């Protein structure tokens, strides 16, 4: 039986890696997740045959409850809410890793010091990933609006972390770990995860979720060492390193270093103190009729969608509008900023949901030099990612962030609900340019009107 289990875990690990590999191209991505899924099924089923186990009833019940709830919520969640859903599933993984450590530590047998050390480190990381992800979920879901910042916060967090470490060391050395110190250890570790996430603003949350994803991977790998489970070690480590790389890519796309994200709330540092001077010039309005005509007779239109479009659920209408334009012979391309939406690639998912083929969607590096040749850049619900201030004003909090050069198009039409500022609270210089026209209204209504106008031409 031991051999069958080893072979199955080996197979599962191989399927995970091949699956992730296939997920790296849109053509094979769908097959990738199916492969990885097959690996998971094989590994789970064979685990029931592990020798010397009991509590099968509880085990089956727990899988049914946890799996059932996750299945239901995963099928139901809307694409716009995907980031927080990923956060919650990720937190569950971290919690599971911490639970494994708790059971093993309470088991009372002192295996070896390596064993104890790995179990405790895995427990610490897993607990932080668990409670941190739950806070991230609450923030993105809008359950927790404000970032909690208080004086001496970092020192306090450090103390909590130090406390968790101290009890962790005690557990590592203890021949027989006391229930009380285990409890305090997990309490402090969970508290630290919450405290660490509280001051971080919603805009930075994707980076944090990605970081917790990597951390959970590591925790799983450590607990894999404890249980001598090669599948857990390999899968956990692969996710740990892949997640770290992904986190760096995201932080880079937002022009923020990881330490900056973790240790200073957005806008709480020098950023907010540098009060933005009012932008020169005025915003000029355009109505739907003129906008439709302008685009209908253009050669090339680049659409820049932002999270505002997704909130208005306008992606279907926008794609319908784009197809009308294409029928008239206009070249239409979609330009997506790496952080459009709530996390890198989120906007691609939302557009895919509306049926936009992925080969019409271009990312920043591919499209930026095409803006000068575009007759119209249609900006829908995007703000900070097209703000030319990021190129020109060193005092701006978003200075240096790579942006889409929508301002270089011959004409810019910005669809916007009102005159307010963007997510970061920074005034957008794009709206005041001579070649920019504002088209006020809800994204979906505006797209509907544009379609109606096109039909009449």
């Amino acid at each position, binding site marked *: 039986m031991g051999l069958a289990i080893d072979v199955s875990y080996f197979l599962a690990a191989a399927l*995970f890696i091949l*699956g*992730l590999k296939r997920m*790296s*191209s*849109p053509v094979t*991505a769908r097959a990738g*997740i199916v492969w*990885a899924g097959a690996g998971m099924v094989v590994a*789970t089923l064979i685990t*029931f045959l*592990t020798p010397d186990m009991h*509590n099968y009833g509880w085990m089956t019940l*727990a*899988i049914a409850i*946890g*799996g*059932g*709830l996750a*299945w239901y919520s*995963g099928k139901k*969640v809307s694409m716009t809410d*995907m980031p927080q*859903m*990923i956060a919650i*599933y990720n937190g*569950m*993984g971290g919690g*599971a890793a911490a*639970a*494994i450590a*708790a*059971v093993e530590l309470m088991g009372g047998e002192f295996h070896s010091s390596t064993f104890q050390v790995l179990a405790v480190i895995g427990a610490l990381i897993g607990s932080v990933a668990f409670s941190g992800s739950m806070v991230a979920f609450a923030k993105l879901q809008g359950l927790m609006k404000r970032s909690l910042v208080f004086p001496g916060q970092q020192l306090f967090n450090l103390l909590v972390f130090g406390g968790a470490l101290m009890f962790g060391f005690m557990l590592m050395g203890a021949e027989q770990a006391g*229930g009380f110190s285990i409890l305090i250890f997990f309490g402090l570790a969970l508290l630290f995860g919450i405290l660490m996430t509280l001051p971080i603003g919603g805009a930075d949350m994707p980076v944090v979720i990605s970081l917790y994803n990597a951390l*959970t991977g590591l925790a799983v790998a450590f*607990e894999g060492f404890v249980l*001598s489970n090669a*599948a*857990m*070690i*390999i*899968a956990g*480590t*692969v*996710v740990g390193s*892949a*997640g770290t790389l992904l986190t760096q*890519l995201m932080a880079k796309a937002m022009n923020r270093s990881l330490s900056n994200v973790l240790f200073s709330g957005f806008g709480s540092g020098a950023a907010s103190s540098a009060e933005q001077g009012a932008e020169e010039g005025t915003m000029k309005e355009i109505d739907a009729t003129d906008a439709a005509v302008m685009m209908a007779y253009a050669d090339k239109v680049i659409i820049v969608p932002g999270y505002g479009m997704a909130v208005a659920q306008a992606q279907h209408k926008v794609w319908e509008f784009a197809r009308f334009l294409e029928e008239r012979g206009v070249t239409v391309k979609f330009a*997506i900023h*790496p952080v459009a*939406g709530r*996390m*890198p*690639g989120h906007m*691609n*998912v939302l557009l*895919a949901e509306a049926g936009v*083929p*992925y080969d019409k969607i271009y*990312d920043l590096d591919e499209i930026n030099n095409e803006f000068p040749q575009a007759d119209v850049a249609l900006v829908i619900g995007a703000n900070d990612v097209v703000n030319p201030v990021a190129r020109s004003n060193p005092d701006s909090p978003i200075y240096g962030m790579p942006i889409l050069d929508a301002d270089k198009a011959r004409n810019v039409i910005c669809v916007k609900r009102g005159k307010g500022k963007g997510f970061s609270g920074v005034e957008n210089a794009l709206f005041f340019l001579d070649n920019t026209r504002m088209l006020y209204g809800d994204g979906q209504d505006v797209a509907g009107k544009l379609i109606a106008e096109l039909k009449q031409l």
Partner: protein
Amino acid sequence: MIEGFTALYIFMLAGFTGYEVISRVPVILHTPLMSGSNFVHGIVLVGAMVALGHAETDMEILIGFIGVMLGAGNAVGGYVVTERMLEMFKSSKEAK
């Protein structure tokens, strides 16, 4: 127990593998990919099952039970949302 240096070798090689596999991923797939890697660490379910399987006291069984529940949630939820997202990616040819 997988012994000292063997464990370290596995750790190192798996680490490089993860880095390499992800480094060629286009931005458009970042969200599904994060979700997909999130699913992969759902393998923690297996460990939680073993921990629950060896649990003796009521407290251990309770914590093991919670662990298995959370692990199953991670695996199943991660799969469902990743699959839903990837299913939607189509090229112009496929989209008729």
